[in-house]
């Protein structure tokens, strides 16, 4: 028999997270087809369904991040940079969250040149954008803007909303956010840590990717920026 101490806990955790992610995936798919078939008939139902939908999406994207971090740390999944049409990756993420955004009455807008190409790991960058979109769906009032363009030889991906914006503590936080302090406050900022790690993995010559949080422009709410060399 295997003694508990022989088991690599992080491995057990990772495989359990993997299972959970599959289950949540099924949950979201079932929920979406349920909403399709039985649209909510009153305000209360809309609210309940929205909560269900948002929380499930949030769990899903957090689990994806956990798995990705685990794999990156164990060198199971190195960066795979290839050339992509930026609009494809952004469209994918909006499509992935279409139902969530629609049920919350959020109208997403995508601004990206159809022929804009860039070099990056589409799975990783996609999951960063996905996470920010899910987050925005919760805090925005009605608008969501996803855009991408080239600035100073960096690809700048922006996810902005018209909500209340990021709290000051997050705006001021230096790099390497989620060391330990925030965990105690019940908010691990896992998403930010993840985004920062993914950005940093993208290197080109001497330049390294980074993220920046702002409030205000362009929609008056929070604005997440991902810069990739």
């Amino acid at each position, binding site marked *: 028999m295997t003694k508990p101490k022989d088991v690599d806990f992080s491995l057990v955790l990772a495989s359990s997270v993997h299972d959970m992610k599959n289950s949540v995936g099924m949950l979201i798919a079932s929920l979406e087809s349920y909403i399709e078939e039985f649209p909510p008939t009153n305000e209360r139902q809309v609210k309940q369904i929205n909560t269900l939908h948002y929380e499930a999406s949030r769990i899903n994207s957090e689990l994806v991040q956990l798995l990705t971090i685990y794999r990156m740390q164990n060198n199971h999944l190195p960066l795979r*940079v290839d050339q992509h049409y930026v609009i*494809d990756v952004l*469209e994918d993420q909006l499509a992935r969250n279409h139902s969530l955004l629609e049920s919350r009455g959020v109208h997403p807008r995508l601004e990206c040149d159809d022929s804009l190409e860039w070099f990056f790991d589409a799975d990783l960058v996609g999951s960063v954008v996905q996470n920010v979109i899910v987050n925005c769906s919760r805090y925005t009032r009605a608008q969501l803007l996803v855009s991408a363009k080239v600035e100073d030889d960096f690809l700048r991906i922006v996810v902005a909303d018209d909500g209340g914006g990021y709290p000051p503590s997050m705006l001021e936080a230096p790099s390497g956010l989620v060391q330990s302090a925030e965990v105690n406050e019940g908010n691990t900022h896992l998403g930010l840590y993840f985004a920062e790690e993914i950005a940093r993995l993208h290197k080109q010559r001497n330049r390294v990717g980074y993220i920046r949080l702002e409030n205000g422009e362009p929609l008056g709410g929070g604005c997440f920026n991902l810069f990739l060399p």
Partner: protein
Amino acid sequence: MTDINYSKLRILIADDFSNFRATVNAMLGMLGVYQVDTASNGAEVIDKCQRKTYDVILCDYDLGPGKNGQQVLEELRYRALIPRRTLFILVSADATKDVVMAAYDCEPNDYLMKPINTQMLQHRMARLLRQREALQGVYAALEAEDSRRAMARLIDLSLRDTRHTRAAQKMLGELFIAEGELNKAERLYTKVLEVRPVDWARLGLARVKHLMGELEIAGDWLEKIVRDNPLYLPAYDVLANNWEQMGHLRQVQTTVHRSVTISPKSILRHKRLAQVAERNGDYTTALQALRSTVRLGELSCHACPDDVFNFARIASAALEKKLHPAEPLVQETVAVINSARARFPLSREQRTRADLLAARVFAQAGKHDSAQPLVEAAETLVRCDEHVPLEVNIERVLTLQALGENEQAETLLHELLQKYAYDQSALEKLDTLLAEPVSETNRAMVAAVNREGIELYNQARFEEAIACFEKVRHIFPRHVGVQLNIVQSLIGKLRAGQKDAQTVSSTEQALATIGSLIEADHSQYARFQRLQEMATSSMALTGQ
């Protein structure tokens, strides 16, 4: 997204969860697709593809017991059950290493991560279908085996700056290489790399260099590629080819071993590892690789009876060298042979080989009672056949030797030598059974190795001399001259003061082997006796 006529599309959904099949089916319904088939396991997908041509196959990686999505695609491609224009989309719960490996090895047209919804499906399919439309002419030309026309179209697409430029460039590079247009391929990859060092173009350029014979450069580049992206399996394959062409079999083995460690599910790489390990005389690795080959073969289109025969052959060699505990290995080998009898429709020749191999391992384990009836069965089969293939006859000789029927073995061997007296390639195969090779190539090889080894010995470079002789020892284990040269080098080492336990035991082992090969009337018997005395006195000094 209005340019796609969804009502005309034929789509196959494969997933072991009925829930998922129904959900995706409903999504497709909303897009206006109504010609949808479903499959719940790999065998069903293969069966359905034999009956119908689909536009899109949405196949989950995990299909429950049986083949997974990658194995399904491998078989569909290998047996040419789907045309190029069929789009295969691999669906998975997340981007695990297995899925990434699958993407490198069997190149699905795309892969999708669950959970999926109608909008995602629509975006992806629209993108892929538009690409297919753009490449339609290329596919048609390739299917008509008109590579000139395919090239012309791809060049046209690569030059125009469209959404399909990159796909066209990738295909064009492959096609240039396949058609031997290396200079054109080199120009194409170089042009792509001027913009950014993408893996596929780096590998393409390294392949071109390899094929041009610039092996040093190709090797350097390939090492860099796998250092930057250790999961990039195709690069290891080319790197192994590169080492092979340079004649460094050890490096070939190391490289294939690395790729197998990263992707333990690739049966073809296990086969290659077994092959090269056998050539290197590393039976432990060869045996392990063949064990994996046989296991993976249960679900692979690349399985064949030879995998089992090779396993039994190497198991037998390992038994002879006493590398592994006999009993479990004999049982395993017999079980593997029996499973092959059950799984493959074996020809008479193959049945004979199976019997002989089983008999041989039984005999090696001292179970002559179990071996005898199998040998008799094999001999009956042999008698019915006018043209017994050489491979079967070699098995017969080895089995007779294992049974201790040395006279019969010698007679048969003698007959074979006469029969194949003018067939050099047959003689090369027979050489492995003989004390001295008879084929010209092998004679020349042994002579060259002996010359080189003796030169090293004369310079007192004993370690290198031993390594040199070892190169031929495992190919011609019954070659007394080579064995004696090794002993002499070992003694040189002992006398030079290197009296470690390893050297002592190697010397003892080599002498024992020679003792079993040689009789008093052998031309080298006197030399053997002399070396034996020298060894004893050198080793005795060790003890003090």
